């Protein structure tokens, strides 16, 4: 009997915890509320199935527990019941999968007019690169990395000269502008993770990955590394600021280009980092 009570309490307790506990996702700051919606649909469907299965089990244990003289039924198969259950499960699965795949299509389709930003990770800091005045990021490779060129930008590529470099500072993003975030690493796997954006992606040395978002809310958001990258993994934090266009432009004016950076390194000090 205690097991029946325990099973019922587990269902009720789980539902109560889900509804009443303060631990829920952080308010969203990007266009991916579709993801949140799909997640909520999944919570409802799976929650209902969990409650149904465990409560049915509790009822069976209560109703058919052993008593003197009780004899079990004998029914090896029930084709019709099994078929129905399979069909209903298939419908439930499809109800979760289809919205998921539709949203995934959006997730992997970057808008034509998206801005571009590069996040560059190494053990254990975040660095960024913006395309500069020509609107295009220069090519880059680990082999170009040196003290004068921490991000490994190809010095022979004219597109790279005016790229804006932010070494270890904050990244500003203009609000309500779709942005494709290119991701690069030169040592180990990292993952650019801002909980408020919902989207994330690994950065893999030897290749360039990406995802896209449209920031929808101004504010300061914490960047974490979400792919284990060694001893200081948990301390690899940064800041992204989603700003109004004016504030963004003001910030951008304070940043330095790859060319300026190299000049600075060749003698003139101090280095200028992000203004804030």
């Amino acid at each position, binding site marked *: 009997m205690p*097991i029946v009570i325990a099973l019922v309490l587990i269902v009720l307790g*789980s539902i109560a915890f889900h509804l009443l*506990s303060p*631990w*829920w*996702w952080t308010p969203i700051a990007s266009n991916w509320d579709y*993801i949140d919606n*799909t*997640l909520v649909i*999944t919570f409802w469907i*799976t929650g209902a199935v*969990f409650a149904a*299965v*465990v409560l049915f089990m509790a009822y*069976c*244990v209560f109703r*058919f*527990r*052993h008593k003197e003289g*009780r*004899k*079990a*039924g004998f029914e*090896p198969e*029930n084709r019709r019941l*099994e078929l129905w*259950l399979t069909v209903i*499960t298939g419908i439930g*699965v499809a109800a*979760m*999968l289809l919205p*998921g*795949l539709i949203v*995934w299509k959006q997730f*992997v389709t970057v808008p034509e007019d998206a801005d571009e930003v590069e996040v560059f990770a*190494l*053990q254990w800091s975040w660095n960024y690169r913006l395309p500069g005045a020509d609107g295009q990021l220069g090519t880059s490779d680990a*082999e170009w990395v040196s003290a004068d060129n921490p991000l490994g930008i190809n010095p022979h590529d004219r597109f790279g000269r005016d790229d804006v470099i932010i070494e270890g500072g904050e990244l500003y993003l203009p609000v309500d502008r779709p942005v494709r975030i290119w991701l690069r690493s030169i*040592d*180990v796997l990292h*993952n650019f993770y801002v909980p408020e954006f*919902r*989207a*994330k*992606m690994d950065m*893999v*040395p*030897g*290749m360039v990955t990406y995802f896209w978002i449209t920031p929808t809310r101004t504010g*300061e958001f*914490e960047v*974490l*590394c*979400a792919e*284990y990258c*060694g*001893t*200081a*993994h*948990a301390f690899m934090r940064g800041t992204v600021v989603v700003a109004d266009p004016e504030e963004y432009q003001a910030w951008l004016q304070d940043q330095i280009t790859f060319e300026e950076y190299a000049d600075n390194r060749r003698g003139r000090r101090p280095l200028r980092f992000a203004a804030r």
Partner: protein
Amino acid sequence: MVDRRTDENVGLPPREVADILPPHAHGWIGRYVFSQDAKYIAIQYAGTAVAIGLVALVLSWLMRLQLGFPGLFDFITPEAYYQFVTMHGMIMVVYLLTAIFLGGFGNYLIPLMVGARDMVFPFVNMLSYWVYLLAVLVLAASFFVPGGPTGAGWTLYPPQAVLSGTPGGQQGGIILMLLSLILFIIGFTMGGLNYVVTVLQARTRGMTMMRLPLTVWGIFTATVMALLAFPALFVACVMMLFDRLLGTSFFMPALVEMGEQLSYGGGSPIAFQHLFWFFGHPEVYIVALPAFGIVSDLIAVHARKNIFGYRMMVWAIVIIGALSFIVWAHHMYVSGMHPWFGFFFATTTLIIAIPTAIKVYNWVLTLWQGDIHLSLPMLFALGFIVTFVNGGLTGLFLGNVVVDVPLSDTMFVVAHFHMVMGVAPVMVIYGAIYHWYPKMTGRMLNDAMGKIHFWVTFLGAYAIFFPMHYVGLVGVPRRYYEIGEPAFLTAPVDGLNAFISAAALLVGAAQVLFLFNLFWSLRRGRESGPNPWRATSLEWQTPDTPPRHGNWGDALPDVYRWAYDYSVPGAPEDFVAQNDPWVPDAQEGRL
């Protein structure tokens, strides 16, 4: 399920395998140490797995001390923490769960349940154990080398696994880890071939495949899968070992580490992930399918009712096994692989939910109209269903590619896989030990200690892992030495983490009681007799309990029916053993 029959012996197929008694060992060492008897090898396997599993248990305590009470324990440095995480994961998945289900239960139950005298290659079977033991010793040795064991995470992702930013990466830790895995796979392959060939070739007369208990189906399918999946891990380990020791670049692109150019170039870190998960996802089912099989039998025996939809259950096991080879990249949705893979792998992953759901339905429908004895195996089986359904359903979040994106690499994932392939299979292991211990020793495990063990383990494990999902939903990534109080937390997680840690300490302590029970009952347990649960399958019909070498005395049993003739209308008792030629009066000529 009834089969046509004309006479007691006619109608049974001819004996295909000669009944040869394996040669008995002379002397104590041959019988108990270098034993070729599958039953002893099973106990050796299980004992070794539990011993190294206790190390993993202590590691989980240390991990939880850090997460629950950050800053309180000076000796838990980030390096140490990541070493605990890594070794805990690797030990639990490979050296405990895989070894105990296949090497332990597989060895003990397969020959007995199919009506064989032993495994078909007893010498290779013995070697399998000793190579496994060597693998465990190499693994344990890594705790004592300079720099300690590897802290690369159990997934061992390169490049960090072999670089200096990870504990043990540039020292001995990762080398011993890879060597140990290679040894494990060699050892497993020897055992695995045995289990498969024994099921296919050494079944006794009348034991058709569709009369096998689901336990055998689960272990058999899992073993076939393991034989196909482990080679991917094997080559990945060899290649990474070459990268680390010989300077090859299988998984290593051009790298700059701490400002210094390394001599690697041209390799692909993602290639390792594909190899790892091509092994790693089937591995989940290598652990789960034996649990599915065993729990089906526990429920049938203790509810005194045939398992509902036996044929569907068999096909579900086979289909899950096959599908599990084309879902691996759902571990890699945010790995940077081509995003279009997401469509394919999300679809295959959610399809696998259907046969899995059928299994759950059939377990609970077996309870319907049963005669449910709330014995310890039944309690653990119920605990398994609750935790497995819970963990399986959260798999639908993570399998559905776009929902995985925010949850991936958070504590939600940790909670999910612990519930579904940690707690749930462990529940089955306990249920199975309470169920078969009487056959192995002739005595029952103590019931009072067992009840305490069950309640603390079941409720405690749920209290650990259910709230942990919400730690992940809030946004806390996995493998975080400490999270602090970042602004995105909607509520601080400190208190919740402390609660989870307290539950983890308590659940761990309950396992000590279980171990004590194992030894205490060896002498003081109630005598069980040959068939205390009144079960139908062949292992309960042996002439001796515990069964002697050769299992069956003078003659192999003949099998007349499936393993689930419980509460058959008209039968003299509420079970009819598989080797019982009883015929219902009302249906002359049919079994």
